C-alpha cells in the first residue's frame, strides 16, 4: 500500500474515532454506548494498524508501546467525554501516566519523571481541589443530580468535525512523510545529566525566565484568589474634599 492509500485509511479511522466520541459525549439523555464503543474500537484498531504499518519505513514499536499509546488515547477520550469532572480528572491521571511511559520508552526518562511529579503530583491535585471547591456542598440535594453544563455539550458535531479535520490533516502529514533515519542520541552520563547540561548551557536564560514566570504566576494566583468580594460590594471610599469643578468627576484611566 502506498502512502496515499494509508492516508485515506487514516482519514477513515479518524472519522470513526470522531464519531465514537460524538456518541460518547454527554448530551442530556441516554448515551449510545454501543455505537460509541464500536466506533472507538474501530478507531483503536486503526491507530494500531497505522502505527505498525502506515508510518513508512520506521522501527516497529513494541507491544508495550502500543498498549500505552492506546491507553493514552483512550483515557484522553474518556476525559473529554465523562460527565463528572472528578472522573475526568482521574482519567487525566491515566493519560499522564501513559504519556510518561511513552516518554520513558523514547529515552526521555528525566522528562517522564518530571511529568509525573509535576502533573500527577501537583497539577492534578490542584484540579481535584478546585473541583471539590467548585461543587455544591454535600448537603445540597442538587449536587447529586448532574448540573446542566456537565450534562450537555456545546455543538458536539462542529467540535468533532474540527477535531477530526485537525487529526486527519496531521496524520496525513505524518503518513506521507519520508522519515529520515538518524543516529541515537549520545548520552554518556545518562539522560538526566544530558538534559541538565542542555538546559544550563543552551537554555540558561529561558530557565531563569521560567523561574521568574513561575514566581509571577504565584503572585498573580495569590492576588486573584485573595479577592473575596466583587468591587461593588466593597465599602465605598470616604468622600473626598470639595474641589473646583475642573477635574471634579474624574474617572480612572
Amino acid at each position: 500500500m502506498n502512502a496515499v492509500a494509508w492516508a485515506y485509511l487514516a482519514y477513515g479511522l479518524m472519522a470513526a474515532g470522531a464519531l465514537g466520541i460524538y456518541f460518547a459525549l454527554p448530551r442530556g439523555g441516554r448515551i449510545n454506548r454501543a455505537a460509541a464503543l464500536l466506533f472507538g474500537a474501530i478507531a483503536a484498531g486503526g491507530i494500531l494498524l497505522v502505527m505498525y504499518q502506515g508510518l513508512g519505513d520506521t522501527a516497529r514499536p513494541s507491544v508495550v508501546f502500543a498498549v500505552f499509546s492506546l491507553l493514552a488515547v483512550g483515557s484522553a477520550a474518556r476525559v473529554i467525554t465523562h460527565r463528572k469532572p472528578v472522573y475526568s480528572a482521574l482519567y487525566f491521571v491515566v493519560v499522564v501516566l501513559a504519556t510518561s511511559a511513552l516518554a520513558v520508552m523514547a529515552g526521555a526518562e528525566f522528562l517522564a519523571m518530571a511529568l509525573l511529579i509535576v502533573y500527577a503530583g501537583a497539577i492534578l491535585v490542584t484540579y481535584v481541589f478546585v473541583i471539590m471547591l467548585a461543587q455544591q456542598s454535600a448537603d445540597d440535594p442538587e449536587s447529586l443530580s448532574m448540573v446542566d453544563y456537565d450534562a450537555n455539550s456545546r455543538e458536539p458535531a462542529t467540535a468533532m468535525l474540527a477535531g477530526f479535520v485537525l487529526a486527519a490533516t496531521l496524520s496525513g502529514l505524518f503518513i506521507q512523510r519520508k522519515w529520515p533515519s538518524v543516529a541515537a542520541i549520545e548520552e554518556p552520563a545518562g539522560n538526566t545529566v544530558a538534559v541538565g547540561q542542555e538546559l544550563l548551557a543552551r537554555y540558561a536564560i529561558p530557565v531563569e525566565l521560567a523561574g521568574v514566570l513561575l514566581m509571577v504566576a504565584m503572585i498573580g494566583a495569590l492576588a486573584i484568589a485573595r479577592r473575596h468580594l466583587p468591587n461593588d460590594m466593597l465599602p465605598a471610599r470616604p468622600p473626598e474634599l470639595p474641589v473646583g469643578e475642573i477635574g471634579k468627576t474624574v474617572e480612572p484611566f
Partner: protein
Amino acid sequence: MTTAPQLMFIGAILFALGVAGFLTRRNLIIMFLCTEIMFQGILLNLVGMGLMRGNLQGQAVGLFVLVVAAVEAGLGLAIVVMLYRRRGTLDAEKWSLMRG
C-alpha cells in the same frame, strides 16, 4: 530507527482530542483539562522531534512546556475559583461579557 513517528502520531491524536474537548465541553475545569491534554500531545511531539533530530533540545523545551502548564494551571484555576465565587456556576457560556 526510532519510534519518533509513532510518538508524534499519538501526540497529534492527543492534541486533536484536546481541541475537540475544549470546543465542546462547557465546564471550565474540563476545558482546562483539555488544554492539559493538548500539552501532553505537544510534549510527545517535542520528544519525538528531538529523537528525530538526534539531540536533546526537544526534551529541554518539553520542560518549559511543563513550566507553562504549571503556570497556566495555577493562574487559570485561580481565575476559575474566582469566577465560580462570583456567579456560582462553571458554565463557560455564562461568561460572555465580550459579546459585541
